[in-house]
């Protein structure tokens, strides 16, 4: 570095070298796959700084927790207990339905669905770049996180893991311009692809037949055709259906069910990669 940028070399030469180096890096990062390894190590080196930058927010949160009165805490606890009991009773029914479903699938000869292993993760850093919609979470390769792993929250699909480092990883949200996810309409199983359109806009639905049975309010769930996202998780709700007047193709947009602007706690899913789709 000292030699390349020594004080004697003129400014324009320095500029030329810097620009050439950064362009090489950009091309390498786009085209050369083993370069991801380098990036993995660099990400691991800088990951402690995420905790530093997250410190003001987390300490503010913990201060807020500490300042709560005991009465409020007791009330909150009671409320949570109540919801827990309700959820548990729902789960009892679910267990029964699951057994029934497994038996029916066994009769039909289609592969059984397996339970996913789940892990909670916390968001360390949300979008810093206005054109990239990604979050950094506090679980990494050491926790078994892999690239392409689905990320959900309690309302629906959030995105998937994009890069991993040793103790942190980066997830791309479903509303990012680069992201697309195969979905199907819950009502009639028509499958299509939901493409991200920036987090301030809705998702755009693509690869549609010309006259498609879809209406505002339809729930879109993952179809599992990509082999990454497990089938049946809610993704979005159709918000508008328009018709392109020139060639009569439908233009459909859908609002993500997960609250992508206020992410705090997420769930990572370890689906069974072998079970892709129950077709055949």
């Amino acid at each position: 570095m000292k030699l390349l940028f020594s004080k004697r070399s003129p400014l324009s030469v320095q500029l030329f070298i810097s620009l050439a180096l950064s362009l090489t890096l950009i091309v390498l990062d786009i085209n050369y796959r083993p370069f991801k390894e380098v990036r993995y190590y660099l990400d691991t080196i800088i990951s402690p700084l995420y905790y530093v930058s997250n410190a003001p927010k987390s300490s503010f949160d913990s201060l807020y927790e500490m300042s709560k009165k005991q009465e409020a805490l007791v009330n909150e606890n009671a409320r949570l207990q109540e919801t827990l009991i309700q959820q548990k009773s729902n789960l009892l029914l679910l267990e029964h339905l699951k057994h029934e479903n497994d038996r029916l699938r066994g009769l039909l000869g289609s592969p059984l669905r397996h339970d996913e292993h789940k892990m909670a993760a916390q968001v360390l850093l949300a979008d810093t770049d206005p054109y990239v919609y990604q979050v950094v979470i506090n679980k990494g390769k050491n926790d078994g996180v892999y690239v392409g792993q689905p990320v959900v929250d309690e309302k629906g699909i959030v995105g998937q893991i994009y890069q991993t480092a040793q103790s942190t990883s980066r997830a791309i949200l479903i509303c990012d311009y680069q992201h697309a996810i195969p979905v199907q309409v819950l009502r009639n199983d028509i499958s299509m692809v939901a493409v991200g359109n920036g987090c301030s806009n809705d998702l755009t639905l693509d690869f549609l037949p010309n006259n498609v049975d879809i209406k505002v309010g339809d729930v879109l769930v993952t179809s599992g055709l990509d082999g990454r996202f497990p089938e049946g998780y809610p993704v979005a709700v159709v918000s508008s259906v328009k018709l392109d007047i020139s060639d009569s193709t439908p233009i459909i947009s859908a609002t993500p069910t997960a609250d992508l602007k206020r992410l705090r706690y997420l769930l990572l899913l370890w689906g069974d990669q072998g079970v892709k789709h129950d077709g055949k």
Partner: protein
Amino acid sequence: MMGNNRTSIVVIWLTLLIGLCIQIIPWSTEYNIFKPHLLMLIMAYWLIALPHRIGMGMAFLLGIVLDLFSGSLLGIHAFILSCIAYLLMFKFQLIRNLALWQQSIIIFAVSLCYNSLVFLFQVSIYHTITISPLILVSSIVDGILWIVIYLFLRLIRRSFAIN
């Protein structure tokens, strides 16, 4: 003399590190358009004040670090910060002697350059076009913030006698 030299390097790096930490703190989406490029401002100050201490290599390194944090392709911010370093170091003596408000207009222009380069890279690599006049807003914030940063860092520079 040697000790002074070392402190000055430590102080410069420390200000840059703090700038980086503040820059990567997430802002809520509604206010994201106002977010200033604090790291760029601090780098710009040291480039103008002490161009022999921090140079193109420093700008390049900071860009790489910024790329890692923002999750963009490695090299985009390095490219942009190198360009900015060139623009500032090319006429650092002129900029140094300008009045503060004139400097802040120059910083506004540089920041506009930054924002539009980020946009151009985005368009050319991902082919997604989102034109927003809002990139002007963050440049204006940068220009105004420059006055504060300049006075603050000058105070630091004088109290640690860095030259």
